[in-house]
């Protein structure tokens, strides 16, 4: 038998909970359940990744070279650091360190923006050189930077499917500063020999068929992850506003705890995405 009480005292405890601990435990279980949902939400994309990589290993081996490991690595570091600051925010709230709490929340938000900024640079470059998903896939260069002449498609037709008409562009030899070299000069012969050596690399060849699929997966996975980062920013800004108003204390820190949990899963998903997309051998 239980007694029926309706909470009416504590401003931070909703009416239907027995007390702050009951509310915290319920919120925490709710967040874990939500995170289970998140993992399943992403799982389909991971399955798609496995299926396509199994069917087209050559595409993945080739196309990952288009990605810049440097950007991926910096972003990984940024996100891991933001997870640290998010966890630290929880601790600061628990210890009632208001200034530290605000600093940690702010750091998390700034890291999230930095992550998206770097992602923006990467995306922009991909749209610039045409390494994108679906029918718009029409790269103007190979992963090594060799120029490709990818044919235009008439309106309404799929440009990615013009792959069979794409050609490697053989450019006349140039000096380092871009000025054309005298044909037949020793410098020119040397540059041609260098270019020949490079062209034997498979990353100087045309992309294998279905390479657009790598970018479909890449944009789907990183795009969905990016949306989650955006949602995280919104949540942390809301927390920041509440922290500035002094809502949180050792007695009430549930929302920060739950948001940090969410932020860790967003971080964790990226930790899988980074090697799966950038570090293929």
């Amino acid at each position, binding site marked *: *038998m*239980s*007694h*029926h*009480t*309706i909470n009416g005292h504590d401003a931070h405890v*909703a*009416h*239907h909970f027995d007390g702050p601990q*009951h509310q915290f*435990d*319920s919120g925490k*279980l*709710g967040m874990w*359940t*939500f995170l*289970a*949902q*998140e993992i*399943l*939400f*992403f*799982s*389909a*994309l991971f*399955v*798609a990744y496995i*299926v*396509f990589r199994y*069917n*087209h290993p050559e*595409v993945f081996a080739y196309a990952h070279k288009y990605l810049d490991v440097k950007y991926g690595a910096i972003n990984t570091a940024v996100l891991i650091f933001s997870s640290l600051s998010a966890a630290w925010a929880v601790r600061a709230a628990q210890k009632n360190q208001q200034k530290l709490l605000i600093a940690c929340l702010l750091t998390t938000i700034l890291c999230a923006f930095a992550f998206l900024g770097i992602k923006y640079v990467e995306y922009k470059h991909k749209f610039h050189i045409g390494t994108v*998903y*679906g*029918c*718009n*896939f029409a790269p103007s260069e190979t992963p090594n930077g060799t120029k490709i002449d990818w044919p235009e498609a008439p309106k309404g037709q*799929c440009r*990615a*499917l013009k792959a069979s008409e794409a050609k490697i562009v053989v450019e006349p030899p140039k000096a380092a500063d871009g000025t054309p070299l005298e044909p037949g000069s020793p410098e020119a012969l040397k540059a041609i020999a260098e270019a020949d050596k490079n062209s034997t690399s498979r990353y100087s060849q045309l992309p294998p*068929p*279905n390479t*657009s*699929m790598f970018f*479909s*997966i890449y*944009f*789907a996975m990183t795009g*969905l992850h990016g949306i989650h980062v955006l949602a995280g920013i919104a949540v942390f800004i809301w927390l920041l506003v509440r922290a500035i108003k002094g809502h949180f204390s050792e007695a009430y820190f549930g929302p920060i705890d739950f948001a940090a949990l969410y932020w860790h899963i967003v971080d964790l998903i990226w930790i899988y995405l980074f090697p799966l997309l950038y570090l293929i051998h």
Partner: protein
Amino acid sequence: MSSEAATADSVQEPSYIDVKSGFWSWFVTIDHKRIGVMYLIAILTAFLLGGFFALMIRAELLLPGSQLVTAATFNKLFTVHGAIMVFLVIIPGIPAALGNFVVPILLGAPDVAFPRLNLASYYLYLSGALLLILSLFLGGVDTGWTFYTPYSTTTDTAVVPAVAGAFLLGFSSIFTGLNMIVTIHKFKPKGMGWFKMPLSLWGIYATSVIQVLATPVLGLTLLLLFVERIVGIGIFDPALGGDPVLFQHFFWFYSHPAVYIMILPAMAVMSELITVFAKKHIFGYSFIAYSSIGLALLSFLVWGHHMFVSGQSTLANMVFSALTFSVAIPSAIKVFNWIATLYKADIHLDSPMIWALMFILLFAIGGLTGIFLGTLNVDVHLHDTYFVVSHFHYVMMGSALIAFFGALHYWWPKMTGKMYAEKPAIIMSLMVFFSFNLTFMPQFVMGSRGMPRRYFDYDPRFELMHQLSSLGAFILGVTLFCIILNLLISLKTGKKAPANPWGGTTLEWQTSSPPPLYNFPVGQPIPLPELYEYDGLSKDAEDGGWQYKKDAGNEA
């Protein structure tokens, strides 16, 4: 303690309906009971709409050739009928409408764990429903409710709003499931362990697990389809190396468990109805409880049986077929336990019990025909015929919706405080049984003889079967409409409902009908009677309901 305390004292507190009135008091309410009622209104409206489309389909099929609509319109009719009935009616039917109302009361709790999330789920549901309806005005969708690629990525019908709607409905379902899981975990009263919970809570819990773990996969799949339609992401496009069959895998990874989102709550309700109206302790409590969890887990492992003819490997087919057969075990455990409960029991044939008995029969037919379809060589013959249509209607309508109506008749007095007219309710429920079988039995016959599903026209030799089926559907449609009418009429003319009209031992019957705002009188102890023990109950309360005998000295 004395168990009649609740009924005697709760008269002073206004009911959840009377506590506030006006549009806004409902529109922004966070009371789980009001949200449940709002779901119920929306679901019944959607049900009538989906039923209307079903009758259009059956009218078209009265004769071979074009009767009412064009072939293209016919495709849109069965698509919207399926989408409405699955996403707007059956999936939220018991968990979101009735579950929302009763789960906290069954636990003696004042509300669900996250009341505001609960209201948000409702508005997600409404937005999804509106987008789905909007797609009708934008020309309809002709893909079938399954949205199979590559057809859904190439057809010029209104796939985008329909898919966006289904996506929102999915998240409504996820959040409802999440709310239920936390509520059941964290709001059990003292003295109610997991194995002292009413079996309906086990059923709702198992359902919620599937809602939370399966629905996101559908969400992601629909999102990819949406992005494909908008920007051409290419993942399902075979021309670019994409895989349309992957869509089928993703879709059924959700949509097979979704069948259990539909049937587990139905079974949950059954486990209550059977024991209450048999006035006998449920037989095999822990077996029924565990079989719910078993079904929830197995439901994730059988999706491939929808794809036996989609080019799956023979090995995969065999494994999925074997796993499919194993689903029969927990299902049969439940049916046998219900029947064992009825054995030598004091059976009260009130209208909810009629629905419950109908459920057992129809579910047996629906379940056993599933074995035919799970058998590889038979399925190759029966795939995409009316046999499949009939099979899943026996499960989704004959079982899930029948249970929904049983549950609605069971909890209606609690929700509204009114008793409906019992005789018409019984007569019409029997008519549902008759007309349902008249509608779908002929479909088994013509399906096994090769009548393909989703066809607008047919061979004249199927004419008689189609006409029997259409006749049954018309009677069924009119009867179901009258059943809803009967319930609505009770709001005006019905007698006041007693606190415990059926003699139930679960907590919702220990509070007034309709319950007060926080479900039980604030500040008073909540009686927790011995679960499924009917010995102390007799039908002699002043309000015409059941109560515990005063002299029995039953310690609740």
